[in-house]
Structures are given as C-alpha cells and as structure tokens.
C-alpha cells in the first residue's frame, strides 16, 4: 500500500513539473497600454516602447500580448479602460498623469508604469522617487520646476528682444493639474531675473488660450510661454494664431513645433518609451514596481522651427541655433 502511494505521488510530481515547465514556456504576458490619441496624433513614446520590447525578445502574438486602451478624450479613455477592468494584465502602461489616474482607479492591483508624468510624488502616485512604495513607477516628465525656468531662459536666448511673455497655464483645479502653481512661482523668479514682464493667463481650455493669444495685441518684443500639462496637447490653432500675431511660442512637444510653434525644449519621447519597456521587462521578470525607482528622462532636445522664425520675422542668433538638436526648415 505504502509503495503504491509513493508511486502515485511520484507520478503526480513528475506530471506537475512537466505542466509548470510547459506553462512557463508558453506564457503570454498581457500588457495594457492606456493612452490618448486622435487623428494625426499618436504618442511618440509608444513607438520607442514597442521597438525596445521587441529587442528584449517580447514578440507580439508569441510571448506577449499588447492591449491598446485608447480614446480621444479622457472620458473615452476611462470608459474604454472600464471595459477591460475585469481582465487580468501583467503590467499596465500609461502615457501621462491622467491616464495613470485612470489606471490606478481601475487596475489597482496590477503594476503600473507611467511614461511619463509630471510630479508623481506631489500628485500622490508614488511615495518617493527612490522608493515608489506603491504599485506605480515610471519616468517623470520634469526634472523639477527648474526646467520651466530653463525653457523661459531658452526663449529669451532664441529671441533676445523678448520683454513681455504671455504665460498660459491650466487654471483648473483637477487631478490632471496638481502643480501648475508651483511652476508659475518658479517662472516668476526667473522672469524677474531675465527682465521679462509676465502676463499671467490661467485658462480653462485650449479655446480660451486661443482667445487670449488672439486678443493680446501683437508686438515683436512679446512671446507666448506655456506650462505644459495635458490640457495643451493640441496647440495647432494657438501656433497659427501666434504666427499671425508674430509671437514666438515655446511649445510642449516636437510635434507642436512641427505644427508651427517656434521652439521646444523637452525630453526625447522615443527614449522615454524605450525606458518604459525596460521597466516592463524588469516587472515581468519578477521585480516589484514599488522597488523600481522613478527615473528622469535621460535626453532633452531643443527643436527650432526656422520657417516659423521667418514667418514672425525674427533672426535666431547663430550660436543658439547651433545648440539645437533639430531644426525644421
């Protein structure tokens, strides 16, 4: 009898080990990606993310399944995400603060990687950059508020005649915008040092920002500065109005510079996506999100649109132009 039990036990053990080895081999990781997109706009970081995952041997359809949860507005994104809330993901990846808030609300037990978002500590998503201490980690957008000051400094370098700057920022109090006031405070200090008069314009929508730009009389010594939050994701019309009024506009992304803004100084989004893939790889290999420090983007780029410079009648100093990483001609 004893012999029989031992034989049965051994057989079960062997079968179980075969089964688990097979399961491990055939494991298909499910990664959900929450992002905002619309016609003519697809987040640049997603391309870098997918490329890097492929390099890390995550092949879609083989060992990796990529579920895109998207919408044109945050409400659309939220309802799309709700449809997946009962599904099991290994990791959820987001492309911004609002998307991360949605992910936290609906997939709270799953590791979440943001690529990127601003002020994750101040917004309460992580406890500290070094030790997130939650199921959320990723890449933070701004190194600190100093970057806004740097952007203003660059605007002044590109257009040395700048004396007045229309400061457009998100005036709403919401989850999307927890920290505009911190940036405004930092910019005030730098503006005073650079002898720039600030015209502060909190706005509730992009349409309101467009109104502000169209109502302020154009002067060659004035510029438009935007504190980048998701509200200002579509600046196409604002950029064309700025050209009309001959305002140099410092935008929030390379895409916006290609669409007509004068310049941008910001992180290389494709590299952010690549680093996001590194986080996903670590998590899929067993590391806990709470132990992966939040990182800053490695590379920042200055992009200048020379066509816009010509249209608004400014000549960019050659030594500044030399510093640009990309020049649109």
């Amino acid at each position, binding site marked *: 009898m004893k012999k029989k039990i031992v034989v049965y036990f051994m057989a079960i053990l062997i079968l179980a080990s075969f089964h688990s080895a097979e399961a491990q081999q055939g494991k298909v990781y499910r990664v959900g990606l929450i992002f905002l997109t619309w016609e003519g706009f697809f987040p640049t970081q997603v391309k870098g993310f997918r490329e890097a995952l492929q390099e890390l041997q995550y092949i879609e359809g083989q060992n990796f399944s990529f579920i895109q949860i998207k919408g044109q507005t945050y409400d659309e994104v939220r309802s799309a995400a709700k449809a997946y809330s009962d599904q099991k993901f290994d990791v959820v990846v987001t492309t911004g603060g609002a998307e991360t808030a949605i992910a936290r609300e609906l997939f709270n037990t799953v590791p979440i990687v943001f690529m990127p978002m601003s002020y994750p500590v101040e917004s309460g998503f992580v406890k500290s950059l070094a030790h997130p201490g939650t199921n959320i980690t990723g890449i933070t957008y701004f190194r600190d508020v100093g970057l806004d000051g*740097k952007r203003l400094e660059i605007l002044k370098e590109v257009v040395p005649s700048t004396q007045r700057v229309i400061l457009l920022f998100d005036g709403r109090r919401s989850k999307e915008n927890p920290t505009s006031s911190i940036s405004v405070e930092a910019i005030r200090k*730098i503006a005073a040092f650079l002898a720039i008069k600030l015209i502060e314009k909190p706005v509730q929508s992009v349409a309101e920002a467009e109104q502000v730009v169209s109502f302020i009389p154009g002067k060659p010594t004035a510029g438009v500065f935007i504190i980048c939050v998701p509200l200002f994701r579509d600046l196409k019309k604002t950029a064309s109005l700025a050209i009309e009024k001959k305002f140099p506009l410092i935008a929030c992304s390379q895409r916006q510079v290609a669409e007509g803004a004068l310049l941008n100084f910001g992180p290389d989004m494709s590299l952010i996506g690549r680093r996001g893939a590194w986080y996903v790889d670590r998590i899929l290999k067993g590391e806990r999100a709470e132990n992966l420090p939040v990182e800053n983007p*490695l590379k920042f780029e200055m992009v200048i649109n020379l066509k816009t410079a010509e249209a608004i009648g400014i000549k960019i100093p050659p030594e500044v132009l030399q510093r640009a990483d990309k020049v649109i001609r």
Partner: protein
Amino acid sequence: MSESIQNLKSKIQNSAGRQRGRLVRHYFVISVILIGGGLLSSGVLEIYFRYRESQENLTVLQQEVAAAAAFKTEQFIQQIETAMRTATKSPEIARKGLSEEFQAELTRLLLVTPAVEEVVVLDIAGHIRLQASRFRAILPEDKDEIPPQTAFETAKKGRSFLGPVYFARGSEPYNSIAVPVERFAGELMGILWAKVNLKYIWEIIQGIKVERPDTLIS
C-alpha cells in the same frame, strides 16, 4: 518401473531447466547492474565536469564583461575630464581670466558632453564665479550646487578630482569631477567642477555584448 524412471528423468530435466533459467536471470541482473551502474556513474561524472566547465566559462565571461565595463567607465570619465581640461584652455581664460566670456565655453562643454548636467567655476578663494546648467535657469543667488571642499582642495593642487558616486533624490547615480583652471602651467586661477550623470555609463555598459567567451563586442 520404467514409468518411475521416466518420471525421475523428467524431474531431473525440469530441475536442470529451472537452474539454467535462474542462472540466466542471475547473469542478466548482474549485467544490468554493472552496465547501468557504469552508465550512471559516467553520466554523473559527465554532469559534474560539464557543470565545472560551464562554471569556469561563466567566470571567464563575467571577468571579461567586468573588465570591459571597467575599461568603458574609465574611458567615459577620461573623456569628460579631457573635455573639461580643454574648456579651461580657452583663449578667453588666458586673456581675461574667469570673465563672462568664459560662460560660452561652459555652454559648449554642456553641449559636447551630454552626461555633464551642471558646471561651476570657483575662483581661488572658493567663490562661485560662473555657472551653467543643462536643465535649470540659474539665478545669481542660487547656491544649489556647491562643489565639495575636497574637490576644491585637490584641483587647487593642480590635480584632477574624481568624487564618490552618490544618488540624487535617491534614484539617479551621479559623481563629480573637478579640474584646475590655470592661466599657464602652475598659475592657478580657480577650479572647474562638473556634476556628471552616471546613467550614461549604464547606457554604455548595457551596450556590451558577449559573443564568445574570448570575444567582446560593444
């Protein structure tokens, strides 16, 4: 009588057959044990030696990767130090000392060495004279990045200083390098100090790929 003889004969034949069968089984078991034992022991020995061999290969591999990483790291630091020393040899320094014109040299240093985030120029008395940052605008009253005393003392002696690795906000590895700023050899004017983001080294080290135990490609 003949019947009983026949019975006896068949009994003897049966017992001889049984004995032969037993003998065959006996030989069979012995040969199975011998062959099996031999195979098993040679298998175990083979596994042991293979394990030893792969362990040795792995050690060689790790040593070579470590050597390549150390070489790359040294090269990375040397390149930054060279760029800093080159910046201190600008004609502006020779002609005007630590003047505003030297600021352009600092901007160029940031441009050509992506890993350098901040640079500070101190005069011989230890006062901040010039600063440049990749990611923040610097106000005159800013004293956020003050070179450590050891950096100042080492560079003042005409030597390069390489600081220990530290973590900014606990998440990003940095170290600092300082070089002397001299009008000419031996005539010290101050020091040039740089804050270096070591994540760039990580990028370089990650690029090291091992093809065969004796070949490294990066």
